[in-house]
């Protein structure tokens, strides 16, 4: 967040932009705010009645005008009841409008996150993106429903009370305002200090959470290395730093709160003194002097909360700004306005002199020009950082090329509607990611509304009947969070089943690197074999066998396609692939000493 602009001004801009993004909030907001200001009027009926009562009956020497007083009382009762109803209506309107508007904003932001390639490129940022659609929006809702409206009500109350005061006596009004001047002057200073204090609190909370996680997440490490004392010391330090930061913020809140109370005392003392003096000079009635004490009471409350309201408003606006910034981040890969339909049948792909770089980074792929024929089985190999993963991302349009084109069945991917593309091309990531639901529901991610018969049919087709039969509850098996009730290998099997249900023409596979139990490995290989049958496939290969069995091997090195041919051809050529292959063989040969 840049603080180059005046934060107050940019704060207003954030609120305006935010409201524009949540039309439900904006609609009728004027009426709601008007009702809010009206609802502060009821309170002023009390000082007025007190003044009338004292000047017309309660005080000394005045002739008791009961009739006029009861009229005033009736009007006051009516006003108080009416403003209570107005306040109720205002709050309901506010709750309904803000909740509706923020839900729209929440859903819009969620959808937008899915459109950002950041989500698939940068796993570390995911937690942050979650907080954009959860806690940040909750902050805004707290602001609109509590802090923000409190600000409006406070200002309204101060203004209305001041108007009533001025109506009674400009001199006493000045006295009261003078008593509050030091407070309001120091308000910004206090708010600044407080906001910094809360920043420190937030920072120490983050640090504390990180060290508290150590004895939990790293329990076995702590135990195995006998570093309990050291860990406890780190945890204690984190807790203490957070404690100190909280106490400091709390002390600022306490002092600003008390300062407003002091100002109130000063205002009442001053208005009584000056009021008596003016009253003796026949410039004021006795009721007015006492009414002022009640009017000051109307100002003290809002003044007490002012610092906290301002601080919370700043936090909320910062949250709002973050959500807006997220929505302002353009989706880098967009659905075409006028899509071209993909031809029917199994498709081939073509990279047409393609160059790719991440924004601000060096070229990851340089001038890649290659054609993949329909039903061809292609293995992509290369060292980490050679560009082979990016190659796969381009083929599935997770990113767009900087120069050149990716063509599918002769159509530029950028002209293909997402829906059309996803029907034809499917990427199977390394890790089989599952959702916390039953196996059935996870499989249906591949084909919406697939019947149980269809699901079981796919299980058979991929030769996984024996595995399926061993599951505790068949299709109703709950896979747990991220599929953790299944082993890594089994998750991969589910991912393959899901892909088979999606029935794409072109499969892009990222082979898993981590070793799984050989028996599952065998199952996976067989299932994969059946899945690839009759489809075009591009596999980022980490295993020798995958490359050996492919129709064609593409070898990447430092962002360039350096070799292209069959396994046998490339081994014979004695280049990069031959070297890579030799080291692979060396490893597996080590173990093949027996028959």
């Amino acid at each position, binding site marked *: 967040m840049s603080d180059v602009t005046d934060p107050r001004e940019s704060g207003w801009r954030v609120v305006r932009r935010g409201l524009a993004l949540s039309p439900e909030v904006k609609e009728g907001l004027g009426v709601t705010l008007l009702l809010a200001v009206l609802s502060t009027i009821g309170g002023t009926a009390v000082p007025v009645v007190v003044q009338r009562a004292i000047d017309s009956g309660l005080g000394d*020497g005045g002739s008791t005008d009961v009739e006029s007083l009861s009229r005033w009382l009736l009007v006051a009762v009516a006003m108080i009841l009416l403003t209570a109803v107005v306040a109720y209506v205002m709050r309901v309107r506010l*709750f309904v409008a803000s909740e509706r508007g923020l839900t729209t904003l929440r859903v819009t932001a969620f959808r937008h996150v899915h459109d950002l390639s950041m989500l698939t490129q940068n796993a570390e940022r995911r937690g942050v993106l979650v907080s954009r659609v959860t806690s940040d929006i909750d902050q805004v809702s707290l602001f609109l429903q509590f802090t923000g409206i409190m600000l409006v009500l406070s200002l309204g109350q101060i203004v209305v009370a001041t108007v009533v005061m001025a109506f009674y006596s400009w001199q006493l009004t000045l006295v009261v305002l003078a008593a509050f001047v030091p407070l309001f002057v120091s308000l910004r200073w206090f708010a600044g200090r407080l906001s910094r204090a809360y920043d420190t609190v937030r920072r120490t909370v983050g640090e504390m959470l990180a060290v508290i996680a150590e004895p939990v997440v790293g329990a076995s490490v702590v135990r195995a290395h006998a570093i309990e004392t050291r860990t406890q010391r780190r945890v204690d330090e984190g807790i203490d730093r957070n404690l100190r930061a909280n106490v400091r913020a709390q002390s600022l809140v306490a002092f600003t709160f008390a300062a407003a109370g002091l100002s109130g005392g000063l205002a009442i003392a001053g208005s009584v003194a000056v009021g008596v003096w003016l009253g*003796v000079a026949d410039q004021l009635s006795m009721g007015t002097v006492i009414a002022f004490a009640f009017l000051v009471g109307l100002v003290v409350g809002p003044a007490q909360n002012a610092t906290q309201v301002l601080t919370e408003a700043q936090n909320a606006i910062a949250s709002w700004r973050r959500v807006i910034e997220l929505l302002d981040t353009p989706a880098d890969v967009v659905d075409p306005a006028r899509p071209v339909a993909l031809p029917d049948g199994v498709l081939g792909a073509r990279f047409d002199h393609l160059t790719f770089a991440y924004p601000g980074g060096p070229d990851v792929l340089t001038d890649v020009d290659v054609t993949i024929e329909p039903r061809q089985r292609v293995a992509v190999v290369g060292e980490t950082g050679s560009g082979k993963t990016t190659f796969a991302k381009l083929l*599935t349009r997770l990113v767009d090329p900087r120069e050149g084109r990716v063509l599918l069945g002769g159509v530029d991917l950028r002209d293909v509607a997402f829906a059309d593309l996803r029907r034809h091309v499917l990427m199977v990531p390394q890790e089989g990611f599952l959702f916390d639901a039953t196996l059935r529901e996870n499989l249906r991610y591949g084909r919406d509304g697939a019947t149980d018969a269809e699901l079981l049919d796919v299980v058979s087709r991929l030769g996984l009947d024996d595995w399926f039969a061993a599951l505790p509850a068949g299709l109703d098996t709950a896979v747990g969070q991220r599929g953790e009730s299944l082993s890594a290998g089994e998750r991969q099997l589910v991912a393959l089943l899901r892909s088979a249900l999606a029935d794409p023409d072109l499969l892009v596979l990222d082979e898993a690197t981590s070793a799984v139990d*050989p028996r599952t490995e065998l199952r996976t290989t067989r299932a994969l074999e059946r899945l690839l049958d009759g489809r075009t496939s591009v596999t980022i290969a980490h295993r020798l066998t995958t490359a050996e069995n492919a129709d064609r091997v593409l070898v990447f090195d430092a962002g360039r396609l350096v070799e292209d041919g069959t396994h046998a051809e490339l081994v014979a050529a004695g280049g990069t692939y031959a070297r890579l292959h030799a080291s692979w063989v060396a490893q597996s040969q080590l173990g*093949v000493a027996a028959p």
Partner: protein
Amino acid sequence: MSDSSSSPPQPADELFVASDRVMARGARLLGDGIVRQKALFTVSVVCSVLFGAMTVADAWVLGWATDHVIRPSFARGEVLTGALWTSIWLFLGVAVLRAIGIVGRRLVGGIVYYRLVAGHRRLVTRRYLALPMSWHHRHPTGQLLSNANADVEAAWAVFMPLPMAVGVVAMLVAAVVAMLLADVVLTLVGLVVFPALFGINVFYQRWLSPKAALAQSLRGDVSAVAHESFDGALVVKSLGREADETERFRRHAEALRDANIAAGRIRSVFDPLLEMLPNLAVLAVVLIGIGRVRSGAAEPGDVVQVAYLFTVVAFPVRAIGWVLGELPRSVVGWDRVQGVLGATGEMPYGPRDARADGAADLRLEGVRFSYDGSTEVLRGVDLHVAPGRVAAVVGATGAGKSTLTTLLSRLLDPTDGRVLLDGTDVRELTHDSLAQAVAVVPQGSFVFDDTVRENVTLGADVDDDAVWEALRTVQADRFVAELPAGLDTQLGERGTTLSGGQRQRLVLARALVRRPRLLVLDDATSALDPDVERRILLALAERTAQGDGPTVVVVAYRKATIALADEVVFLADGAIAAQGTHPELLERSEDYRRLVDAYDQAREAAG
């Protein structure tokens, strides 16, 4: 997509615990907190009572000033200077004392709360460090983190409004006394209005809290859906499920919206009502007061005082409602925290020191292990690994490989049988001595929020040369040297992010730098390139050959890893099915051959 998304949201049941139980548990919770922070809590309550008394005094001073300054001055047409000064000093004095009360109440009361929270965080994390791994295994990570954080905060949250609520009770008593002194009839208004204010607060909390609890649990659902959906972004995107995911999120977001609106409607009634009531009370006081003054039963100042009391007392009364509203939530948090604090079963360590140098001799005798007391994961394992040997543990998933490794460093103890290190039962060794002798590199690589150096040494007294040497052995010296600050580079959430392979190498270096006598690798190299893994294991084997390396037990999947071992232990269904060199086992055991050849079979299947 999940079942929970289509069924109506369920309220958090535990928030509806029977209210008498809440009161009983709540009383114990309050008592516990008060005892823990006796002195400061007393100060905050005294300050709060001072605040309450001064609030009432404020009204009394206004009444006094009305009768002794304002009325006489107006009546005589001259300012009663002496009395005026007295009233000014009274106003200011009361304001100052009241301000002191506010600072004390809010600041000291806040300190009480923050100290209680910090104190319990320390207690809970101490339990985490003391409780055995078997206890940790039984409790999900997320739950333990929330016990130490959200639950501890919830448990003591009631202490935030508590001092004020106590002060308010004192204030109400003082207010009624002040009213009685002023005028008995006017007091009646107070006796109607104060209980009404109290009742509205209680009723409001009762009415609101289930709705607020529902909204809270729905908020959790929304967050869970967002987490899951973003984590699975690649699947969502490649299957083109963005619209369906958005629809799923929308359903949860709208359920939260409706719950928030429902709670909001209740809140909308409450605030205007609480504002209205004291205002009407003032009008009633004025109406009745006129009669009282005319009949000579009360002075105008009395009426002003009582009227003013209502305006200043109304807002603080809410503190009682805050305490009542917070209490059920606090009890739930407190119960959860007590669950951790009450857990027992620390692992006791013995008094003996292990031998200081040379590779260890490892022996397992009749080792059995069960996580739940019924299904045995290990069923009588007898094993001997001679000093300086490298033993590979091979077996299918669920054969008990990982469990076996956790017994060696006593992350768990066998249910039956013994683990002997150089002939000494590991249960007889001191914790430090055991940790010194045995280094386990577990599956998954935990990196601390600290520098590279600290992540390797973990506070052990090792110089940088030794750190670099360990890093070199695991082929991590190059990438560490390239980090922005080398060994001083901060890692973790707010530091540099390492790749899985880099993390794993760092964790290996952490084990090596301590020069353990027994090194246990539980699938610790799976995230490494096979080539890197091989080089690391060769370097280790070389050191062992020179008599400088540890005895090694390695859980292995890859043939290359297995081939580097001096001997292979083939585990099947919790028992050793065969033991010997790799070629021997290939010859002797059909099952072993089938298992390790699975890759080759896979190749044939593919070909």
